[in-house]
């Protein structure tokens, strides 16, 4: 693996790393001053486009391209939403950035707003991050006081207001348009597209929604240039014309059954086994790994013999996973029951489905009921086929839902059963020897609330 310098995490070990003075002492807001004085929004947009930066929130959409979709012919302001509703299980890279280096995030946010000509920005912060809330608000106050934010910033023509908005604890608010609806004070039901947020977003105005880590990257691209950014990561796959490549540094969240869990910075394209063994110190307690989640639970599963998978935007797809996601790797050791894993996953998605589209609302609830019954020792072989059918038919990829939550719910089901089929069948045979091949309907299982 490459041993590049730390960029995104460069400051976090300094004492009082969240303070403005510490950040300024390490060269903070110098880029913001320079860009305001010397550069135009279009130049920054072109720079980001040239860098090949792709969104760090999960989908990996090219950031510069997203910005270029903004409708400029509309009256009224352009809004910028910073998606800090980091709720994907296993993911905490945004949290580290916001708690330990909030000014890096804010400088990236200011630069991104400048580039998109946004005049108002909202930080949509996950409710469960109280420290990040306090530190971001303190950082914003310090920026207003220092003149980095507000009207006619640093004597320039540009004005920007930033509001810190706290969510109420729903996973769906991390979805771009769910976030916008929630920000508007509505139920976070993702919107149908078109119109896309770049044309009609928050309060029916053109809106950009970007992830915290994405804007942090923008800050470094503005400082070091696009060539520096493109020098890290994985170039486009020549055999795939639709792959724009995966460039730049990335924060990897490593958790689960590893010796040294934590947030590690490395260029995109780090292999899973490199991350676990070299950065994370290997599987804990001397055990062997059974599987790993490549990028948050919704991306699916990698078997331990698939750990050569590179963590970039293209490689996980080749292993049957949904994508890179948030690059949050959760290691499962050999003692973990995949049935329990899937039960847990189904519980999460049944709880978090917003309930708008029928296939997701009913599919997540039904898969949970099936798993509950399997775990209660009344599973049948054909339940696995049913689960796979539910998994294969919900989501935006088959076209049956509005947003990607259902895909995220489907992938753990599909990967767990397809990659660990034998374990599921053994479990069914062991727990329900009489009925595991039964074709007859079974009595329904009462959930606790109904019993």
């Amino acid at each position, binding site marked *: 693996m490459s041993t590049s310098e730390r960029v995104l995490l460069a400051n976090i070990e300094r004492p009082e790393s969240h303070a403005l003075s510490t950040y300024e002492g390490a060269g903070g807001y110098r880029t913001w001053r320079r860009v305001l004085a010397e550069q135009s929004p279009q130049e920054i947009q072109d720079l980001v486009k040239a860098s090949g930066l792709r969104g760090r929130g999960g989908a990996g959409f090219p950031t510069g391209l997203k910005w270029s979709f903004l409708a400029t012919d509309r009256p009224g302001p352009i809004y910028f939403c910073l998606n800090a509703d980091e709720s994907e299980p296993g993911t905490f890279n945004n949290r580290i950035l916001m708690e330990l280096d909030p000014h890096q995030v804010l400088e990236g946010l200011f630069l991104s707003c400048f580039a998109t000509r946004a005049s108002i920005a909202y930080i949509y912060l996950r409710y469960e991050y109280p420290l990040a809330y306090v530190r971001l608000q303190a950082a914003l106050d310090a920026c207003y006081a220092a003149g980095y934010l507000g009207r006619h910033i640093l004597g320039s023509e540009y004005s920007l207001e930033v509001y810190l908005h706290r969510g109420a604890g*729903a996973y769906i608010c991390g979805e771009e348009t769910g976030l916008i609806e929630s920000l508007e004070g509505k*139920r976070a*039901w993702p919107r*149908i597209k078109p119109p896309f947020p770049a044309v009609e977003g928050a309060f029916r105005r053109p809106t950009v929604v970007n992830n915290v880590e994405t804007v942090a990257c923008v800050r470094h691209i503005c400082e070091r240039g696009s060539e520096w950014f493109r020098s890290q990561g994985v170039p486009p796959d020549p055999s795939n014309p639709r792959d724009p490549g995966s460039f730049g540094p990335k924060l990897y969240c490593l958790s689960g059954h590893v010796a040294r869990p934590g947030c590690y910075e490395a260029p995109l394209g780090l292999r899973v086994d490199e991350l676990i063994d070299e950065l994370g110190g290997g599987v804990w307690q001397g055990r062997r790994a059974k599987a790993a989640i490549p990028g948050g639970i919704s991306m699916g599963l990698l078997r331990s013999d698939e750990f050569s998978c590179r963590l970039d935007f293209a490689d996980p797809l080749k292993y049957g996973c949904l994508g890179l996601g948030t690059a949050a790797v959760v290691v499962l050791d050999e003692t973990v029951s995949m049935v329990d894993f899937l039960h847990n996953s189904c519980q999460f998605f*049944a*709880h*978090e*489905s*917003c*309930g*708008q*589209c*029928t*296939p997701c*609302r*009913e*599919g*997540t*609830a*039904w898969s949970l*009921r*099936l798993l509950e*019954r399997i775990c209660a020792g009344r599973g049948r072989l054909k339940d696995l086929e*049913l689960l796979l*059918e539910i998994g294969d*038919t919900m989501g935006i*990829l*088959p*076209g*049956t*839902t*509005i947003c990607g939550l259902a895909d995220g719910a489907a992938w753990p089901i599909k990967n767990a059963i397809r990659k660990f089929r034998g374990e599921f069948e053994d479990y069914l045979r062991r727990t329900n020897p009489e009925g595991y091949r039964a074709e007859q*309907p*079974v*009595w*329904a*299982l009462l959930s606790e609330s*109904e019993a």
Partner: protein
Amino acid sequence: MGSVWVDGHEVEIRDGERLNGIQAAARVGIDIPHYCWHPGLSVVASCRMCLVETGRRNPATGEVTMLGKLVPACQTPAADGTVFVTNSVAVVEARARVEEGLLLRHPVDCPICDKAGECRLQDYFYQHGQPERRADIQPFTSRRRALGDTVTLFVDRCVMCSRCVRFCREVTQTSELMVINRGAHEEIEVFPGFPLSNPLSGNVVDLCPVGALGDRDFLYNQRVWFMRSHEHVCAGCATGCSIFVDENQDRIYRLRPRENPYVNQWWMCDAGRYGWKHAFDPQRLIEPRMRRGEGLASIEWEEAIRQLDAALRQVERLTVILSPFLTVEESYLLATYARQVQPHATLVLGPVPEQGEDQSFAGGFVIAAEKCPNRRGVAAVIAALADRDLNWDAWLAEQPGRGNWDAVWWAGGYPRPWQDSRALQALAQAKLVIVQDLFASPLTERADWQLPATAFAERAGSYVNRDDRLQSFAWAIRPPRGVLSEGQLYWRLLGREGMYQARAVLAEVASQIVFFSAAHEPVPAEGVDLRIKQLS
């Protein structure tokens, strides 16, 4: 001008026409099942029942490129060159799965559900459902709660299409209804202390594609397959909503709006919806009576018609008061008859009840302040046949001391007893008073002749609404035994042969009176705009 293809059928789209896949398919008779989409509400594309495959046809080569995944037809514009496939294996399977999902927690209590028989969940299950139930979830609960005075929610039957929520937000803009909880625990609810209470609340029951919302007035009164639906027109106000009268054995059970883009779109107001009760009021007049000494005595219709005709031919000055509840045909026949017995008979437009001000809703639906269906039509008949235009107030103003008439025929049909002392005073001076109305009132007490009238659903004929749109309808129920309809009575008085036929009379009216000249037979279901001919 453009073309889209639905299952190989070409559908022509006119310039400026904005259709979605469901509407384009309907043009060639292909029904794409859907729950959440409604032409009068915003598109949410959430039920996913209308999933289809789509693609584009290259205009040069005719080659079709498919998108490769399912899309909701409601959200997909039928733009030139769009191809829809609604019968592929993928579409059929997707529909079956959505239907299966919706039935997972549905109680399937059809035997006690009011919607059974007209329920989309039922219909689509037969048309698109899985052959057998694979789910092991048995719904146990049958929770219900009132959302307001008009509507009850059956929580477990709901499929979360959110039509009712959108209606209250987008049309009435009162926003009483909302969705609470998340995922499979979602429910429709009102905020505590703010029940569903708006002038159009009953429409959410029509909008509900399943049995989740029950009309408290209709609940458990009748199975829908026992009822016959008759196209009719609401007589509640001058808007003249197109409606269905749903009846069984001459007993009305409910009124429903009938889609009419020119009048009421898809809606009707609660006042109109529940405003049919007077037709079954036991206090209604149900037989003709004539004065004999101090009191009024029953008389057979044959005898009544003969004697009435004879009496009227002896009076010198006759005034006929035509209420705005009469149809065009009825008022025309009565006016014609009056002119026949007395060539200079005075024709007066009866009192026009008004209440409040016009109430407009988003999308153009209006509840009119004028609480009668046919002021425009009756006034036009009077204008054409009378020597001079007279309305009720002008006629009353002329009365004191003049007494230049000696017979008055009050052709009422008001849905409430008529209480007006001025009317009574004016009529008291006449030698011969004929009162035809639905209910007994001081006027009927004073009358020398008391004739029963028919209620709106018992009439056949045409109304002209506030925008000069004429809508025709046939009777939906028969009047109570003993009541001869106005049209039949006037027809007989005129000495015409056979039965009263509203359609034939309308043709006569159209040929005689310019105002009605656009009302050619057959009048289409959405009515005809009389202003077209007036302008030309």
